[in-house]
């Protein structure tokens, strides 16, 4: 009798044990997900509010806008120090969270998570398109983040010096214990160039409906920008051509509202891939009357040039930026668009003496910017230098508030353009002479304190 009862008890206990695993495998909350499938990884990369972000130093430390003395006084320390190219930047700022450093590294982390988890998914005949896309997209996002960060935190690329110039910590896995020292600028460029090149065969030639996702034209446009930045004009032109052969649409600005505060939807025809600058500088916000457009720049737009009314608004007769190629986003658009690729191509053509071809390319763009009720006189140049100057002027006007101005100044100064930037605050003058290392943002103190990486010589 007794043994019979004990047997029953053990039977119940063993039954309990056998279904234990199943019982404990129940997910504790519907609010969490273990990213495993290709669809899960796609959703990691589709978090554009986190991933499609770039640094914003290229706007504030350039010469596109200025702020008034009282606005400067009321600005936060980061804005003040960036605006005046402060030499003792970190000493004055302290251990302050800097989104320009943190957000691109978050993009790199997400890309690395996607790449790491993708290794566990087998590529098959049925899933290969999606599999390739995820790999290509993750490589693109990582490369774009790295390239963008070099423009803020590193010296302009100079072939002879890049091997000794500090670059960035190169992270190719999501492991949080794996802290990396800074690689050389040369190695950093090699790292993201390899990512871009690896992404080319993996991505589709068509621009996606959702313009936050990478595509083959996006890689080509990015490579055109990178090689232009490296002053390898031959390759910059080749990749501009590769991009334009796949996608070359321009928007006729006559179809765009000149009164709307948000003239362009995000998924507009020129947008190849949308990125926006991180927060951090109030003068970058298009919704407030803070950053006043440089009057020389504003006055350089012809009255028949629709960009003058579409890009800018005036408040108390001072010009301010409107919202750009990312719909209602208040921070500047910093992605890739066809207009930039046209200008890359035109610049390369001008540099190699193809004056007519260069002017044709610029004119093709300007025709779409001109008021159709006014007469458009195509621009002409008699020699290479003249053509180049026209292209560079148009580049500055077309790519205003795209975060490209400071990288362009740094690059052009290496070409001998001799551009000095100047600010006046409360009667005090601040200048940034050509090739001054204050055009490089120091590595944030929080990073130096936590990982001990080397600071950029200033």
């Amino acid at each position, binding site marked *: 009798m007794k043994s019979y*009862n*004990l047997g029953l*008890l053990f039977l*119940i*206990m063993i039954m*309990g044990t056998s279904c*234990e695993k199943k*019982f*404990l495998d*129940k*997910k*504790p*909350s*519907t*609010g*969490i*997900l*273990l*990213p495993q499938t290709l669809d*899960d990884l796609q*959703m*990691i990369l*589709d*978090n*554009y*509010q*986190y991933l499609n972000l770039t640094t914003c130093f290229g706007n504030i430390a350039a010469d596109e806008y200025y702020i008034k003395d*009282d606005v400067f*006084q*009321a600005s936060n320390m980061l804005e003040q120090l960036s605006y005046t190219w402060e030499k003792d930047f970190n000493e004055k*700022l*302290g251990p302050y969270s800097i989104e320009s*450093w*943190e957000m691109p*590294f*978050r*993009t*790199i*982390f*997400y890309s690395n*998570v996607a790449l*790491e988890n993708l290794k566990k998914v087998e590529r098959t005949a049925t899933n290969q398109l999606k599999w390739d896309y995820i790999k290509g997209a993750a490589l693109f996002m990582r490369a774009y983040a790295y390239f963008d960060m070099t423009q803020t935190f590193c010296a302009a690329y100079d072939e002879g010096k890049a091997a000794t110039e500090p670059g960035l910590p190169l*992270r190719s896995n*999501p492991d*949080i214990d794996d*802290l*990396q020292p800074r690689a050389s600028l040369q190695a950093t460029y090699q790292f993201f160039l390899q990512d871009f090149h690896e992404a080319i065969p993996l991505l589709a030639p068509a621009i996606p409906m*959702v313009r936050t996702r990478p595509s083959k034209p996006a890689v080509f446009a990015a490579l055109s920008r990178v090689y232009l930045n490296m002053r390898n004009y031959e390759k910059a032109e080749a990749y501009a051509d590769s991009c334009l052969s796949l996608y070359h649409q321009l928007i006729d600005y006559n179809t765009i509202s000149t009164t709307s*505060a*948000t003239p362009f939807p*995000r*998924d507009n025809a020129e947008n190849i891939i949308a990125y926006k600058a991180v927060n951090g500088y109030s003068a970058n916000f298009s*919704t407030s009357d803070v950053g006043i457009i440089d009057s020389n720049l504003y006055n350089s737009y012809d009255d028949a040039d629709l960009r003058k009314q579409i890009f800018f608004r005036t408040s108390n007769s001072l010009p301010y930026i409107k919202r750009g190629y990312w719909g209602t986003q*208040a921070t500047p658009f910093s992605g890739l668009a066809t207009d930039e690729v046209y200008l890359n191509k035109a610049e390369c053509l001008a540099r190699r003496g193809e004056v007519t071809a260069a002017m044709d390319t610029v004119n093709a763009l300007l025709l779409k910017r001109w008021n159709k009720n006014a007469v458009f006189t195509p621009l002409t140049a008699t020699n290479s230098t003249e053509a180049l100057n026209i292209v560079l002027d148009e580049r500055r006007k077309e790519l205003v508030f795209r975060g490209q101005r400071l990288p362009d100044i740094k690059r052009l100064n290496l070409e001998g353009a001799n551009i000095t930037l100047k600010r006046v605050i409360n009667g005090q003058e601040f200048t940034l002479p050509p090739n001054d290392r204050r055009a490089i943002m120091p590595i944030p103190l*929080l*990073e130096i*304190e*936590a*990982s001990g*990486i080397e600071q950029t010589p200033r």
Partner: protein
Amino acid sequence: MELSTNLRFASSADRTTEDKYDSKYPYERVADAQGNALPVARDYAQSYKDTAGAGYLLDWNYYPLDERKPNRKNAYTDYQLNLGLSYKINSFLKWSINYQYTRNVQQIYSERGVDRYSTRKVINEFSQLNHTTGTVYRPFPLGAILSTSDINTTGHFGRTQLSFHHNTGWHGISAELGYEMRSTEYWNNSKTLYGYNASTASDIPVNHLVDYPQFVTGSTRNIPINSFQDGTSNRYLSYFSTFGYDFKGRYIFNASARSDASNIFGVKSNQKKVPLWSVGAGWMIHKERFYNISWLPTLELRITNGYLGNVDKTVSAVTAASAPLVGSDGVPFVIIQNPPNPALRWEKMNTWNIGLEFSTRNKIIAGTIEWFHKNGVDQIGSSPIAPQTGLLTFRGNTANFVGQGIDIVLNTKNIEGAFSWNTNFFFNLAKDKVTKYLLRQTSPRIYVSNNQQSPMEGKPVNALFSYPWAGLDNEGMPQGWLDGKITKDYSAITSNKDFSQLIYHGSGRPTISGGFRNTISYGAWELSTSIIYKMGYYFRRPVLKNSYLFSTTGVVYKSPDYAKRWQKPGDELITDVPAAIYPVTTNWESFYDYSSVTVEKGDHIRLQNIRLQFNPRLKGSVAKLMRSLVVSGMANNLGILWRANNKGLDPDNPRSYPDPISYSLNLVATF
């Protein structure tokens, strides 16, 4: 064989208003002399609200008095079923099995009509007004916003155990072996309808995927989707065993061991289990032959040592992401919530406990005194991490700490009889110290502002640090100390790496706490009062921040310090509140906010509650109807009797209104 069943059912409902009125300004008027509701300033300038809609939009004013009408109904239903079966196998072995089923249903019905400010405001914000024709297009439809939720919580609990009891005069042995399963499933189904009309139960569909221009800002946004479902599951399994032995009822030995497992996410099944064990011994001193203290008939000594493993369910060893979210472009995305952390391990805690229990004759004075010592290893905490990882903070095994303290409970019977008076006294002393912390901060800022997240080795887990304060200068600017000199170089103070220059005040949590309870009863009446005290700690009081004072974003400014601010040279001798300076410079605020002048002693004594109870002996037909009847009334949060700070602040709640006094009346009848 014994079979027991028990079924319980309970139901309750309440109605509340969802409006939480919080005055923006001191002495804000909410009613006129006749008691009619008055609008108060909210969100937008009055001149704007009055004219922006040119009379075509809904009333944009906020009348707090009109928002008091309840708009939210909560209905709760509880079921509980208990089944028990026990079988006596023989005189010393018993087998039992228990099962419990619980189900809790909560239904929330919230209807915010156009008589509510929040509804009118959101409809107006989405309105598109044609000023020439006066027509209004409303993508956010006119009518009420109805939100309903059905929340179901279902619980299962099962336990089976084999117990052994054997007593042979001198030796007593008892043991238990068992197995337990528990699951709680929570499911919430919420939905929101717009343009709702209660009389026809109809609503107006809206397009959530279109970004509509906003009336005020001109920017665009979509109508929020507030319909969702979510659920959680908590599952536990444990095996347990206990063993007890006593010799002559004088010497007692106990041991227990159990293994708990739960459905923690992202770990292998063998890591889901957490071991726990304890061993203890007791000595009934009063049963010894040599014991002859007649006024102290009970005296017992106990000692235990226990080990506890704990898994933090909020972290996981593998990458975990959020459930998919959908942006306004309709593309689903996820947020990574937990980075991969293959090194994650259990938190471990070892506890020593030595206790003495005693009572005088007839328990006139009875109580326990206990000493405990805790040693925690691999405690899970958050800490800042190098930003190159893509993260700013990281949760993982970061800290070791030790803690020890004393617990005293004393119960006295001061007067016994028809009129009786009892006192209960509680005293707790607890001190802790961080013995190891993985991350050493390089800036004092984190230690003064966020010590819970980055404790300092050698100091309590929650320590209060501040920058040394050196008064105001003759322009009303705060001054601090740096390297023995008075300075206004705030960024130098707030980034000074010499942490010995910080002022360490003490623990940010009470190190001494307890209570004092007196109960007087006479016949069916019983009156009790409860006083609690907290001592030996510090808190930081809110200060006058210029950035709040001049804020346009609606940070509510409520501080009596405004009247005490520095206004003219000489004021620095009588006040510590800096001048109101515009434009705001944030770096002196971050110094002043965390300076030593804003730290107060937290010690206080509070009258927690007074309770009056009537428990009559039931007679005659009433006694046939019900077994007992208890009527009681209670007043809670009666106020602070004494406090160490002279600012009139409640140390438990220094940054907002103190908890209001609450009254309750209870009637419990048992049939």
